[in-house]
């Protein structure tokens, strides 16, 4: 980019920028990372303290759970579906792990496996009802949201008990050197998501499904199986995020997953994933999670109350929705 720009004169520079910009496409994965950089610059202008290593790693830690959740959401959105139930999977995993571990590492492995199985099972149910009974994803996962929330309340009888074990605590809030542990899990998920979407047949099928379900079915893609896999992955990733969040807060808390479904959709959408299916990326979704975490941290940093944060989040979502329209036209 810089080479192009230096070679040309003023007009050439503008042209080069325009071409590059068009290639990025407004609302694509690259745009959101540019927005992240811009936000970092703004943060630096607002306060030099914001750029401390501790603070930035803290932001990244906050982005980790959201990023993992949003990666699962993006996989589902790419198929043209939606997963509203993932936030309640976080809650259920949180109360189950806190109750069962009760502060001890003794049963860590079976409990973690159980939590992942819970996520997979919820996803499996979502996927099967959507594909076999032909109920729209919005309704299925909305119903599942209600069911899983109810189960979490019934399981705890409304009063969550227990606490998280030391190892899980290290995963959620510990550090390796200066780097929060949770970030490593997120990196693994983001890289795996990128490889899955760009390098594997499954990834191609996910895009094909979202682009045109009928055409992909007619060309031999096992659309039902692919759909189920997408929801199972979203459920499992929600469970992973739930474990990390549990590790951070340390106890069981029934409201912990509320609203995270919409946050995950917001992160994916801001990162360029489209609700109509067929468009999206893991890299962009990661960018969306970083952007939102950074933004909220900045807003808190300058002392804006929660109400203003909501307003700004709404505006950003609307801008993302508009960017999608623009990118579809070009």
């Amino acid at each position, binding site marked *: 980019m810089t080479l192009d720009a230096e070679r040309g004169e003023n007009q050439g520079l503008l042209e080069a920028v325009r071409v590059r910009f068009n290639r990025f496409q407004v609302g694509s994965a690259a745009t959101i990372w540019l927005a992240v950089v811009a936000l970092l610059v703004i943060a630096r202008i607002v306060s030099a303290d914001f750029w401390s290593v501790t603070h930035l790693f803290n932001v990244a830690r906050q982005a980790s759970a959201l990023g993992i959740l949003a990666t699962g959401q993006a996989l589902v959105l790419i198929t043209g579906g*939606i997963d509203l139930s993932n936030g309640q999977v976080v809650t259920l995993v949180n109360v189950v792990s806190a109750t069962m571990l009760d502060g001890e590492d003794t049963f860590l492995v079976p409990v973690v496996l159980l939590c992942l199985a819970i996520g997979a099972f919820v996803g499996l149910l979502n996927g099967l009802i959507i594909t076999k009974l032909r*109920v729209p994803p919005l*309704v299925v996962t909305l119903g599942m949201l209600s069911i899983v929330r109810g189960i979490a309340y019934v399981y705890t009888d409304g009063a969550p008990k227990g606490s998280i074990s030391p190892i899980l605590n290290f995963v959620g809030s510990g550090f390796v050197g200066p780097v929060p542990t949770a970030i490593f899990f997120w990196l693994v998920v983001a890289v795996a998501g990128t490889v899955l979407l760009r390098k594997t047949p499954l990834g191609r099928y996910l895009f094909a499904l979202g682009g045109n379900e009928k055409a992909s079915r007619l060309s031999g893609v096992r659309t039902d199986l692919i759909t189920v896999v997408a929801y199972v992955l979203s459920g499992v990733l929600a469970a992973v995020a739930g474990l990390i969040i549990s590790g951070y807060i340390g106890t069981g808390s029934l409201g912990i997953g509320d609203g995270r479904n*919409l946050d995950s959709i917001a992160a994916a959408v801001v990162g360029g994933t489209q609700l109509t299916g067929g468009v999206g990326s893991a890299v962009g979704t990661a960018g969306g999670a970083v952007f939102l975490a950074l933004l909220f941290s900045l807003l808190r940093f300058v002392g804006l109350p929660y109400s203003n944060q*909501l307003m700004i989040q709404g505006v*950003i979502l609307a801008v993302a*929705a508009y960017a999608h*329209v623009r990118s579809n036209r070009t």
Partner: protein
Amino acid sequence: MSKSSVDRPQSSTDSIRRLLTTIKPVYFALVALVIISAISEPSFAQLRTARNILVSSTALAIVTVGQTAVMLVAGIDLSVGAVMSLVTAVSALLMESHPEMVGWIVLLCVGIGVLVGLINGILVSYLRMNPLILTLATGTALQGVVLHILYSPGGLVTRGFREVSRGSLGPIPYPVIILLVLYLVGSYILKETPYGLSVYAVGGNENSARLSGLRVNRIKLSLFVISGFLASCGGLFLASRIGSGDPLSGDSFTMDSIAAAVLGGTNLFGGIGDLWGGLAGVFIISILSTMLNLNNVSSFYQWVIKGTILIGALAVEFFETRSQ
């Protein structure tokens, strides 16, 4: 019912079967629920319980009309809950400080709803934004506005304004009158007027509706305005019922209105649905929670049951269409 007698079927079982297939499953579900409730809980059959259920479902019934209208053109309105919360906050706060200006305050609240509907409608129809994301955005922003002006429940509506939800005209409670008028007028508009037919045409196939000369964008815009308007009316009713403003009071109505419309047979992809089915869906939701409360079933199970019914209702539809 008249349809099947006109058809002159050969046998009576045939006519019954035909009759059964023309009635939507949601009505069976509602009747079954009422019968089960009446048998299992004697107090259910009392007039007071019926009245309570009616009053407690009115706000949802009002909002569901708007939600159904938007869903008929394959839209969705996730901002209704925030509009309702905003309206309860604004009306309660203003009525507390200016009790003499109730009329103007009500107008202002309705204006807020219409404005939100206009914004949603213009952005969705003319700028082609995705309705799910856009109304999620406006809903989120509005929720921020609500929390900005009223962080915890407060304010007080006037005594007269409370009468809207508590009073009655002779033996008939106002809520019943509100619901009847709203649903009769709404159904008439949807089923009998050119405008209503064009709504179904747009929902059925937007492109062919556009090619046959309908002003598709204007129709979609009008439906979002209706949804915003009715959300503010629902919010006003809610404020009258609870007597004060509550920044989270509208929260559950977004999902519940979608659930009620879907239970009533409204298709998420547009073109199919009517208001009465949605009203039945509203009653199912509120009778269910009343009954479970009467039977001391913890509200925790109610979530499980609600979710199961929502998914189950559409799954039943699947089996029906397959057997035909």
